[in-house]
């Protein structure tokens, strides 16, 4: 009844709604503001793609668990007594109570607080009090928790999918696998350890976060306060100053892959000279720098210190995993205009304590000095897109540009190109168009193996 505009009117009449709202050069506002589209995303995107759930180092030992959301569904990420990882629905098989009420912990089993049905960390029923009264249930699997049927760890990153036909994770990652490996392999085999997962709640659609991840156009403007303050206090040519001027002439670039993945590579600028030297100073910088130099000598200290700054890559692994600097981001949609963004901080096993201490302080820099302004802009977009008469979000920057280079595993483009968004929404469109039916009923049939 509340159709306002010609375009919206048209949309209601057309057969290919998804073709309409995602256009090669623009995205319709409803993609960010329509509650029904959001509900479908929770099924068609988060019920179909490989969804990032957490990192193995968060549940290092057998019997460890943490709770998360999986496209809005409350889940428990567990490592069972054999070390196997599961993503269990936090929902009792009896009358539906959440069985786990803690954010994290370690336990042999979850005992539902209502009638004490209990489950081990594989989701298997351990006991049902006075079970005789349920003789009519033919399968003992009736008493299990449902779980995400396919869960995999790609080098420590745990993904799950509700889609039984999803490709293997390696195939799914496609071309982004290579920069993903680069990010992981930065430390000569030193293992990444998550050291804190602060979360920000933002009053904006989740895709503003992913759009921004591939947006090499915004830093000079959205982060102007950071750049100005830095140059005022620390002089020119410091961290991120390379985003000024005509950044398309810089050595940075974006690269886009199949399945909606992409990344931005800042390394050619950031590590051109010393990234450590260019870094805004962390608390304790000079002390620990001196400490390392005296312990390891000038050259090794220099090498190590380069590992205390960010990785210089922004990866987007469709739909909800981002890698930014040294941090892992999990994008966690709550409502069409409400999103939690988890920032996993990382340390690296085997690196000197001093480096990990500096890494902590480095990783506190950008969230407070930079991200806050982006978030303000995401929320401002959410408000602005409330206006029905101005319908389109532009994603046409460098559209069909001759500067795009088709490489073997993906397309390389100028750093400010919206090709990243176009890549993301092509996959989004494909999934939204499909008809997804999730059927987990087989988990409650047959015998516990």
């Amino acid at each position, binding site marked *: 009844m509340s159709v306002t505009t010609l375009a919206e009117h048209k949309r209601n009449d057309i057969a290919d709604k998804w073709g309409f709202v995602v256009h090669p050069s623009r995205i319709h506002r409803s993609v960010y503001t329509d509650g029904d589209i959001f509900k479908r995303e929770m099924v068609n995107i988060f019920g179909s793609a490989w969804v990032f759930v957490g990192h193995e180092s968060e549940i290092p030992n057998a019997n460890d668990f943490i709770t998360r959301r999986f496209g809005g569904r409350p889940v428990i990420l567990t490592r069972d007594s054999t070390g196997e990882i599961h993503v269990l629905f936090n929902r009792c098989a009896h009358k539906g109570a959440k069985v786990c009420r803690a954010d994290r912990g370690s336990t042999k089993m979850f005992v539902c607080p209502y009638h004490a049905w209990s489950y081990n960390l594989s989701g298997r029923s351990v006991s049902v009090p006075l079970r005789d009264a349920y003789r009519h249930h033919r399968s003992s699997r009736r008493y299990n928790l449902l779980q995400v049927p396919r869960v995999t760890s790609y080098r420590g990153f745990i993904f799950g999918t509700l889609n039984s036909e999803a490709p293997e994770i390696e195939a799914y990652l496609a071309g982004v696998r290579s920069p993903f490996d680069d990010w992981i392999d930065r430390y000569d085999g030193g293992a990444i350890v998550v050291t*804190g997962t602060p979360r920000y709640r933002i009053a904006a659609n989740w895709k503003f976060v992913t759009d921004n991840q591939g947006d090499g156009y915004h830093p000079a403007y959205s982060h102007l306060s950071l750049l100005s*303050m830095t140059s*005022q206090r*620390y002089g020119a040519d410091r961290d991120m100053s390379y985003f000024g001027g005509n950044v398309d002439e810089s050595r940075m670039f974006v690269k886009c892959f199949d399945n909606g993945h992409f990344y931005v590579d800042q390394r050619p600028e950031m590590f051109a000279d010393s990234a450590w030297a260019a870094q805004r100073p962390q608390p304790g910088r000079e002390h620990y720098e001196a400490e390392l130099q005296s312990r390891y000598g000038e050259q090794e200290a220099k090498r190590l210190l380069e590992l205390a700054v960010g990785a210089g890559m922004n990866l987007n692994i469709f739909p909800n995993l981002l890698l930014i600097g040294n941090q892992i981001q999990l994008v966690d949609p709550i409502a069409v205009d409400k999103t939690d963004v988890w920032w996993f901080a990382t340390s690296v096993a085997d690196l000197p304590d001093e480096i990990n201490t500096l890494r*902590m302080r480095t990783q506190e820099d950008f969230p407070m000095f930079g991200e806050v302004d982006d978030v303000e802009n995401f929320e401002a977009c959410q408000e602005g897109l409330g206006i029905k008469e101005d319908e389109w979000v532009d994603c046409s920057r460098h559209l069909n540009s001759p500067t795009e280079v088709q490489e073997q595993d993906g397309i390389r483009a100028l750093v400010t190109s919206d090709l990243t968004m176009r890549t993301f929404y092509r996959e989004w469109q494909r999934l939204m168009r499909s008809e997804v039916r999730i059927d987990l009923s087989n988990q409650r049939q047959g015998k516990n193996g």
Partner: protein
Amino acid sequence: MSASASKKRHLLGEHPGPSTYVDDALYDRLLKISAQWSEAGLAVPASQAATVTALLNQECRLLDGGRFEEWLNLFVEHCIYWIPSDVVPQDPRREITWELQDRRRLEDRVARIRTGHAFSQIPPTRTRHCLSNIEIWAVGADELRVRTNLTIHTYRKGKQQTLPCMGGYVLQRQAEDDWLIELKQINLIDADQAQGNISFFL
């Protein structure tokens, strides 16, 4: 008002010098102090309590007035501002915090706001820092600990919020009856939960 504070020592925008005081000894000290907020020591005499309370009231008033340069002057040179990201604060060397700032980076924070382009603070978060349950005790001759319930009411973009915190202060004596802040530690009631825009000073 603190006599020391009234001497302005820092002009933001100057090239700040190196920061060497954040070392393992300091981290150890922070952890120890943090664990001690659960017990108050013997209360200081009333007159000293009045001096300290006046200092903290001033601190709140300056923050609420957006007078951040003056606010910084209430801190000793080697100060720390700490907002842990867990309900039981962990070692900041091994776990990230919401903020763990030395003086240089506190100045960076103020300088950023002063650029006029800090969009997360345009418009600024309006605050009302309210202190209650103030407990003050001495640790040796020249150090005071102050444990408070710090309730911060905020308003921004049509949304009002209340941030209930434990506010812990360590003060260092500058002269007979003159104190400055070495540490301000803010334990948010929901430190381990999702936060909104906390890009102002708590």
